[in-house]
């Protein structure tokens, strides 16, 4: 029997968006490595802007995991974007 190396399970990157009736939008970014979630968020905003969905104001609030990312490797990450339409 062939000795197979164990591959660590890696959850798929996911972006979960909830659009409220009043136009408020919440986007959760999960299972990204390092700064990849920031790049995905930026790309999403750029593409949304081309379709006319424009973010006029944005505040940036790091979660505790953000500080942990600088000290050790983060396997599972989460990011949340929230804005109103």
């Amino acid at each position, binding site marked *: 029997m062939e000795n197979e190396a164990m591959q660590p399970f890696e959850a*798929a990157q*996911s972006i979960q968006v909830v659009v409220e009736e009043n136009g408020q939008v919440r986007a959760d970014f999960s299972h990204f490595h390092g700064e990849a979630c920031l790049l*995905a968020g930026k790309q999403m905003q750029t593409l*949304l802007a081309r*379709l006319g969905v*424009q*973010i006029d*104001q944005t505040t940036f*609030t790091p979660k505790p995991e953000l500080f942990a990312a600088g000290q050790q490797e983060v396997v599972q990450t989460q990011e949340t974007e929230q804005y*109103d339409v």
Partner: protein
Amino acid sequence: MSHIEEGKTSLVFHTLLPLLQAAQSVETQAPIRLLQQALLLVAKEYGGEIRPYYLTYSGREIPANSGLALHLPVQQDRPQAEALPRGMGLVLDTQSGALTFRADLWGVDASFAQTVQQRIIQRYTALAHVAVLRQMHYSVSTQVQEDRIYINGERSHAAI
């Protein structure tokens, strides 16, 4: 990495400004096709239809420069004021590209008109997110629960 971003967004169609300012049709442009899909969803929900114009109280037709206006007839199962019998035009400001709603709301419940506007924006925002996530090579599924629209995009690390 984790963080929270909060902000205000608005529907502003900058990419359509050159066409709008040249008084050319924008109806075949991607954002307008998406806007039409959003409007169709709302029209279906309220038993209405889409026309390219809205009406004044005297019955004069005013074309919407998006080519889209939502008309909701009076329904027997709803109060008479919860209808848009003269339609509500989706008009793009030719200076800023911002989406505006134009209607003669005499006899119309103002809060109903506001709800319809919000619903159009909600549907459009959701459709735009779906389109963008697909463009980013995510597998997308959607679900509507009560007044919320849930969109889930997933992409395996192997696909990156």
